[in-house]
């Protein structure tokens, strides 16, 4: 018995340990799902606050996206590593401590290297702490899955979030001030010859809500399985 069993065991071990490749179909789905079918903003309704407030121009939107990608990837990995150690009762506080230390890090780095943008984002970098997208993914995914999958899920969701953010900012900056990344894209002669005017209304906060509403409309008209019953 003692002679045969190791051989058997190794073969079982070998089969069960046969790893799925790093970018298997399932893992790729984790990355691509949040971009459309399971978008954090338009479908899961997470992380709306910051999505609206900082979309007047593209530049802060891009910086915000990068910060969220960093925070989500790191916090998902950390919580996934700790998932068997965290007592269930105090998990929210553990989440908050991990997230807020990461966010404090991002805040300090931005203040040191990109002061203007950090001034523009004001309290909204700090508010990543309570951005429900981070907390929501930790609770729903990282607490029950392995490190690599959690990392992919974090990055995927952060990209889905950033995608919406950049889409809203694109329309608002283009229609509101005729610029993209602060560079004039609508040529001057259109203003002069055709009497085109920038729609200053797009720069005001209510239009962020309406723009996002219209984007949701377009997305659901194309992808009809997302339509709510009601």
């Amino acid at each position, binding site marked *: 018995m003692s002679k045969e069993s190791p051989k058997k065991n190794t073969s079982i071990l070998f089969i069960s340990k046969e790893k799925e490749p790093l970018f298997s179909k399932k893992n790729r789905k984790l990355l691509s799902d949040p971009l459309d079918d399971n978008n954090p903003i338009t479908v899961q309704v997470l992380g709306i606050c910051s999505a609206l407030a900082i979309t007047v121009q593209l530049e802060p939107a891009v910086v915000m996206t990068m910060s969220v990608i960093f925070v989500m990837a790191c916090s998902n990995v950390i919580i996934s590593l700790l998932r068997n150690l965290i007592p269930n009762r105090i998990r929210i506080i553990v989440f908050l401590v991990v997230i807020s230390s990461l966010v404090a890090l991002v805040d300090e780095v931005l203040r040191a290297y990109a002061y203007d943008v950090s001034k523009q984002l004001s309290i909204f970098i700090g508010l990543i702490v*309570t951005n429900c997208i981070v907390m929501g993914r930790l609770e729903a995914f990282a607490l029950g899955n392995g490190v690599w999958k959690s990392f992919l899920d974090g990055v995927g969701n952060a990209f889905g979030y950033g995608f919406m953010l950049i889409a809203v900012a694109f329309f608002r900056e283009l229609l509101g001030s005729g610029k993209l990344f602060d560079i004039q894209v609508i040529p001057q002669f259109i203003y002069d010859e055709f009497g085109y005017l920038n729609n200053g209304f797009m720069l005001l906060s*209510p239009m962020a809500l309406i723009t996002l509403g219209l984007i949701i409309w377009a997305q659901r008209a194309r992808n009809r399985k997302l339509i709510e019953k009601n």
Partner: protein
Amino acid sequence: MDLINLFVKSIFIENMVFAYFLGMCSYLAISKTLKNGIGMGLAVTFVLTVTVPINFLLYEYILKPGALSWAGTQFAQLDLNFLSLIMFIAVIASMVQLVEMIMEKFSPSLYGSLGIFLPLIAVNCAILGGSLFIKIKDITNITEAGVYGFGSGVGWFLAIVAIAAIREKISYSNVPAPLRGLGITFIITGLMAIGFMSFMGIKL
């Protein structure tokens, strides 16, 4: 007079939902029925009124650059500003827990109606936003902080009650299918925000 001015300003002109988009997630998620909307609004108002003054004291006497000078001259140069996020969120999370326990003990009926919303509040960005705005708006004493917290809470309460009532009515109308639910709520909120912009520039 200044206090009344601050109060009205924080309710209408700088409304948490319509001007800063804070607390949008719970605003959208819990506004399906009026009853839940009122419960959530009350809970947010209550927690804001409690946490903003506490965080103000924390910021003023511990975190602000040079705030520790009361403890001795050797601490006068210290700047603990980078700790403010962690401190604020710790205060909020523990206050929410405390409020929950006190409420359960002394008013079980209120706890029954608000209970499920309280844990959600720890991650409501309106609460943390209220505390972070202490640094930006020049709030100079604890009375102002209290009035600011209460006013912001009332503003949030008004917003969620209004949208919940509208959503209850709108379920009877024929909205285009892809716009149902989330989409139309966004657009209505946008229109309400345009309405609230008419308060801009009012001074008492």
